[in-house]
């Protein structure tokens, strides 16, 4: 215990800083992933043909081991002299979040009660009116579930970003491993877990706040 106290006394500021780095990297990646994935998922509901292809490609992305994906980024981004650091890690994370976000958005909207969709069309709603007024609001819980999955996934995977020099909590863990320092490994891992739990809880709150009770049920 005493040793932990001493460890934290020395390392707390650094842990905090790395946690913030980690959170920043993930947040930016998620925001960009959302800006791409949600509209794409929504669009795909109106284009069956494209939907199959895109969902397949996104699925494949997720099967690439995370270490490998980060590795692939290095030669690609070396072309613009940014082979290591924030940018390749950021791009890898954006790619990783696409599947849960696109797929959940797509299936959420597709799974909205067909009778509800029928009623909307039968009343004379145009496609965008139907999406905005009926389908998206009623698909919100599932879309949010996809976003939460992506966030938690990314917080974990972003640990690997340390290997390509993008900072974050992975730094503590990789250092801990190479130095055989359990304190570093444990504190790094705990911080990652804590960050994931807090982020998930926060998103759940947002989700509850912005969906009516009826839709959640």
């Amino acid at each position, binding site marked *: 215990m005493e040793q932990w106290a001493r460890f934290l006394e020395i390392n707390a500021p650094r842990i905090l800083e790395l946690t913030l780095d980690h959170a920043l990297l993930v947040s930016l990646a998620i925001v960009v992933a959302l800006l791409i994935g949600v509209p794409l998922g929504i669009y795909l509901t109106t284009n069956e043909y494209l939907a199959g292809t895109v969902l397949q490609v996104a699925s494949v992305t997720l099967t690439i081991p995370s270490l490998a994906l980060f590795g692939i980024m290095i030669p690609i981004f070396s072309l613009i002299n940014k082979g290591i650091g924030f940018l390749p890690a950021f791009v890898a994370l954006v790619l990783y979040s696409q599947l849960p976000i696109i797929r959940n958005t797509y299936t959420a909207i597709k799974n909205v009660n067909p*009778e509800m969709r*029928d009623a909307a*069309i*039968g009343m*004379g*709603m145009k496609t965008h009116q139907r999406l905005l007024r009926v389908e998206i609001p*009623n698909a919100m819980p599932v879309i949010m579930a996809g976003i939460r999955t992506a966030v938690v996934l990314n917080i974990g995977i972003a640990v690997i970003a340390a290997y390509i020099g993008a900072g974050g909590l992975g730094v503590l863990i990789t250092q801990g491993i190479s130095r055989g320092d359990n304190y570093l490994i444990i504190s790094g891992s705990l911080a990652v877990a804590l960050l994931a739990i807090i982020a998930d809880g926060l998103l759940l709150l947002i989700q509850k706040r912005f969906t009516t*009770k*009826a839709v959640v049920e």
Partner: protein
Amino acid sequence: MITFNQVTKKYSSEKTAVKDVDFTVDEGKIVVLLGPSGCGKTTLLRMVNRLESITEGSIVIDNENSMDLDAIELRRKIGYVIQSNGLFPNMTIEENVMIVTDLLGWNKKKKKERFNYLMKLIGLDPKIYGKRYPHELSGGQQQRIGVVRALAADPPVMLMDEPFGALDPIIREKIQDEFLQIQREVKKTILFVSHDIDEAIKMADKIMLLRDGEIMQYDTPSKMLSHPENEFVNQFFGKDRAIKSLSLHTVRNLQEVIGLAEMDESIYDTKTINVNQDLRNTLSMLLNQEADQVIVTNDQDEKIGSITIDLVQKYLHYEIKGKMSVSQEG
């Protein structure tokens, strides 16, 4: 007015859901589409607001070919009610009801007035129910909201696909009565799908009986019951079609033809029914022996006589059976 001109619907080259259907729904009338499951009722209905395409033929609504209109505009001029009411759970009752008026760009004041009027029609307080969400209403209330939502923009034409099918019998009858009351006021041209014979007899100005996408008979309920044009119609309405047809007659009809019985003042256990009650309900009341004597009251609530099973039987014999076509009996 809705006119079907030789309308055919093929879902694929083998699957013909509607075959050469040719009929007219007159202005302000209710036509009930009736027939066994899969006979094409829903398909027929959904071709009117172009939720299904028409393979051959045309549908003309108030002198305009439905294909000449923009689908979106066409749909906004047609009220549409479905069995599961299709209310949007993310919207309040008021938002749900006012959707079409909203799409049409009505102003706030006009919408509010309309909403209050509509809620009055179905006897729900707009202040209390307006802000609720669909799941906070009973099934019957939801279904009524579904109906007034279709009425919101005052469309001349209404399409109703088993609108009361999901309700229990008691609530269903109440809502049917209520709807007929509303219809007397709004006089819409209505296509109404049902697979309930009693509902069809009650609601319809005319019934269309379908089989495998083809019209078997298109007639008034009483004609349908008394003069089935073929064996299918005869079978469909069943052996008890005479009893069914009783719901088309009231105690008043009976009184006019054969008169009521005297009241027996000495009988203590009595029940009263109104002279406008239909004979089918009257008969079941008599058969249930709910009282020793059933007394008939007129519109002023005055007792004008009593009614017995014998009287109903006599009326049935002379008025209904006598007029049924003999060749179809058995």
